[in-house]
């Protein structure tokens, strides 16, 4: 079908209008979209309809998406922390951490008390990361000893993981893309091995995050699914 011949223009206009409105049925819709990729007349006819109808779309009531959406986008793109302009990546925002502050503080305090005043600069002192969701309820607690390479992750809450999905733990280095630490179990205790001893591996890593990925983890090396939990790296030494 050659849609760009003059005698077809009326038909094309009707198809393009139905395409933009949304009423063009599935197969015809796919066909027209395919043709528009190479046929400039078809593409221009569709664009003209988009411009006719766009003022209608632009004034419909806005609905603010969950803050999670920006976090996931920033994580997927590996956006670096920026200055104070605009919103910036989520993990650089004060307000973001404020939500986690109480949970982190409570867990940190409990841990500090058990350890009876950790002394600074003593090897063997633990590092703890409380990973919590937007509701600030701790879901996972990650601990490791200084100089050790094994990070222990204990599930203390959080949502059940749907079948066919896995939780994946990420380091969020300052100014670089997230790095995977591997898949962790959704319940009980799991262990992941760091690429280097704590001080080296987590130097310049202010936070960890857990995303929901396909079973076995993200195949691309970058988070693909939504970020469920995040936590600030707290040092007790």
């Amino acid at each position, binding site marked *: 079908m050659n849609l760009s011949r003059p005698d077809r223009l009326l038909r094309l206009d009707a198809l393009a209008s139905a395409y933009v409105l949304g009423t063009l049925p599935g197969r015809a819709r796919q066909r027209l979209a395919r043709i528009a990729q190479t046929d400039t007349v078809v593409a221009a006819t569709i664009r003209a309809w988009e*411009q006719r109808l766009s003022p209608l779309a632009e004034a419909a*009531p806005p609905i603010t998406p969950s803050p999670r959406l920006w976090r996931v986008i920033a994580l997927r793109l590996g956006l670096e922390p920026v200055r104070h302009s605009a919103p910036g990546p989520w993990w650089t925002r004060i307000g973001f951490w404020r939500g986690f502050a109480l949970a982190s503080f409570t867990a940190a305090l409990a841990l500090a008390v058990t350890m009876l005043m950790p002394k600074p600069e003593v090897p063997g002192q633990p590092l703890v990361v409380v990973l919590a969701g937007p509701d600030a309820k701790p879901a996972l607690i990650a601990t490791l000893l200084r100089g050790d390479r094994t990070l222990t992750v204990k599930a203390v809450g959080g949502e059940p993981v749907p079948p066919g999905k896995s939780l994946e733990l990420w380091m969020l280095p300052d100014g670089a893309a997230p790095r995977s630490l591997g898949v962790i179990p959704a319940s009980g205790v799991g262990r992941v091995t760091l690429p280097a001893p704590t001080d080296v591996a987590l130097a310049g890593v202010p936070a960890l995050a857990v995303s929901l990925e396909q079973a076995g983890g993200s195949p691309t090396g970058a988070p693909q699914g939504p970020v469920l939990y995040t936590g600030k790296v707290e040092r007790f030494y």
Partner: protein
Amino acid sequence: MAVPATSDKSARLAALLARIALGDQSAFGEFYEVTSPHLYGVALRILRDPPAAEEILQEAYVNVWHHAGSYEVAKSQPLTWLTSIVRNRCLDQLRRRELDTVTLTSDDDDAPAYDLPSDAMTPAEMLLAGAEARSVRDCVDALEGGPKQAIALAFYQGLSHSELAAHLQQPLGTVKSWVRRALERLKSCLDGAGYVRNE
């Protein structure tokens, strides 16, 4: 051809896109803050499924980050460009679902019953509210009740012909001709009023 009357907002978004094309993350953050509530509203009304709507937006913004440089100022305004991308993805998804579940060749008669989200405004009211430019409002206003409602439900909520027929309790053929005629009238009215911004 240049865009004749670019609003302040469009100019600002176009400037942000230019910075995004150069890898400016703060521009990207600002662009997201300004545009995401609008795009999410568009997607959620069509898909009625927050995770699905978020997924469409996620892809759209990842694309904006990677392909901001391919946005052509001369061809359409930024929000129109982005809204079209999001609406098309949502509609593709809806229509694909229909292809997956329905064996008939085109829009058919067994219309699934949808729970329409209770927006503060009805689609028909949005249609009028959306018609900010006087010419658009006049043109929308000139449509008759049934066709106006059909256009509004299709545009804002992605209803297919058969869904429109069920929702409006009209024969399929009636709804189809309402939609077709309403689009023809809108076009001649808008183009006659010199509305189309650039072609």
